[in-house]
């Protein structure tokens, strides 16, 4: 018993990362957004979820360990705590970097009975990748997701902030063709939307940004013609 007491008193308590341990740096815009978000909650811990969304947008849709450390530093929580939260939620991409467009295929019940599995097979063959993989050119990442709750439009896909459905093979062809030629980064577009929705109208910082948001120029909404 006494050994345990000793261990507890000798070992360092989990602490937030220090500034000199960070390898990444939020842009001024991101810091301003995070500060505005903090006004919604009584403590800094509660801003972990929106903070992770900001980080995911800042670093092109991928929450690496360094990105998580950045959030932990800003919110004064330990790295382990923030990583624990990030890995729980399926919309944070903590496992691998993602392509420019993430195609999320709903394979849950209503989509299943409306024939999403043969369609998913078609998308996989067309892109030459399996679920959870990215094409070699870094353009597309394919994910299987649980119910997107647009079952009246089954089968449904989500790309960026948009739902597509009902989808058939011809629609997939058109969608992929249009995504290939568009320069919109739909992966960060989605996280960007989420941050904007949470923070509300935000005045862009007037001072010249030392580290501009990498995707600031490429925003806009993608239109896919449903009728062909």
């Amino acid at each position, binding site marked *: 018993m006494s050994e345990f007491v000793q261990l507890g008193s000798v070992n360092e308590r989990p602490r937030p990362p220090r500034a000199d341990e960070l390898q990444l740096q939020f842009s001024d815009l991101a810091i301003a957004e995070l500060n505005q978000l903090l006004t*919604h*909650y*009584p*403590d800094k*811990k*509660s*801003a*972990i*979820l*929106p903070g*992770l*969304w900001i980080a995911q947008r800042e670093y092109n849709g991928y929450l690496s360990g360094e990105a998580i450390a950045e959030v932990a530093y800003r919110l004064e929580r330990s790295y382990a705590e923030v990583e*624990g*939260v990030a890995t*729980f*939620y*399926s*919309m*944070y991409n903590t496992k691998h970097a993602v392509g420019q467009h993430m195609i999320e295929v709903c*394979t*849950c*019940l*209503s989509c*299943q*009975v*409306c024939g999403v*599995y*043969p369609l*998913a*097979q078609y998308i*996989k063959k067309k892109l030459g990748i*399996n679920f959870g993989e990215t094409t070699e050119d870094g353009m597309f990442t394919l994910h299987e*997701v*649980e*119910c*997107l*709750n*647009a*079952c*009246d*439009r*089954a089968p449904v896909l*989500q790309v960026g*902030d948009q*739902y597509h459905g009902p989808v058939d093979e011809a629609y997939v062809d058109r969608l992929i063709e249009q995504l290939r030629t568009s320069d919109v980064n739909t992966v960060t577009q*989605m996280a960007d*939307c*989420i941050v*904007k*929705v*949470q923070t*509300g*109208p935000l005045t862009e910082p007037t001072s010249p940004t030392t580290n501009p948001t990498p995707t600031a120029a490429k925003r806009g909404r993608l239109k896919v013609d449903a009728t062909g």
Partner: protein
Amino acid sequence: MAEYKLLFEHAHDPEFKTLKGYLAKGGYSALKKAIGIPAQSIIDEVKASGLRGRGGAGFPTWIKWNGLPKDKSHGKKHYIVCNADEGEPGTFKDKQLMEATPFLLVEGMTLAAMATGGDVGFIYIRGEFLDAAKALRAAIDEAYANGYLGQNILGSGKNFDLYIHLGAGSYECGEESALMSSIMGERGMPRLKFPHVPLPTISGLWDSPTLINNVETYCCAPFIVNKGGAWYATLGASTKNSRGTKIFSVSGHVNKPGNYEIEFGTTLAELLEMSGGMKGGSLKACVPGGSSVPIMNADQVNKAVIGYEEMWDAGSMVGSGGCMFLNDKTCIVQFIWRTALFYANESCGKCTPCREGTKWMLQILERIVEGNGQEGDVELLMDITKQIDGRSFCGLGDAAAWPVAGAIKVFPEEFDFYVKNGKSLVNSNLKLLPV
């Protein structure tokens, strides 16, 4: 009976999304009325209306509203939370409510704040629902700019702030204690519940009194305050204890899938008729209230009347209103396999019966679906459902066990045939093909 459009009356009017259009249709008259009357009488109206929680459990709404401390001498803020983490497969009513009638939700939450002394509100929307979040954002901004939110609302001297909190793709966060964990920046895992700890209305978010209701429940509040609880209670009066309207999200093999608002007391067969009837075959089965409720066969569907108690008598539940109709070419075993996969994916991993049990059910169903079923597998599945049901920390365990147990009870011959012959009775293929 036909559709009864109360919440959805102006859902197809794009003007209704703006404050101007909302006011033109009589919006915010309930709030103006509520400011002039004591808080308790708002709660009394909700009590008289017989409104029950629309998220799935059907808990009487007024008890929650009445549960928050009446005097605020404890010095804590009161939180009003909206559960918009709609994740139940088959349900998409909250999504349309938020996209088409955002002001109804904002006004409903403001009314709840007036009735219960709320200071700050959070709308917890699942991360995928960006269109809904944007519509609400615009509505909230407009309400702030015109004095319907913020400091001194319409000169009443009361303050109410409303924020949006977006989730990040966890089904478990639809459970109220997990939802609170998620707002407080934690993993979305459920917490101990009453009677082991005080109710959220006493100690919820940041240990402060918290009111949590579903989107549809809040959207009903303006109508109840406006037209009176007694008027609302006349809707659905033919049922035992269900009052008002309910939105059903109809999907699956129907000709016109979509949201249908009906009065309680309508039959399930009428709902099917409204949604254009069956497509590609005759009716075989129906999951009437989201994936977690027991499946019904055609006989049960034809007899079922929609109402909380009536559906229970018919062998299923109203649940969240995600109604999936399946035609006779659907293999129930493969359908249940996908249900089990959903719950295995979404189990948060906190307690053992659910974390392990959902995976075991999936393993057994997977080997049946792949044609490697063994004798006794169906009995083993039944046994596992009994080990999960009622033994897990939150409702997700029960929700995972009920559809499996229900399907085995209602369609035993399909399971037996699949195990014996290694293929589907109806020769359908709804499973993942090998790459």
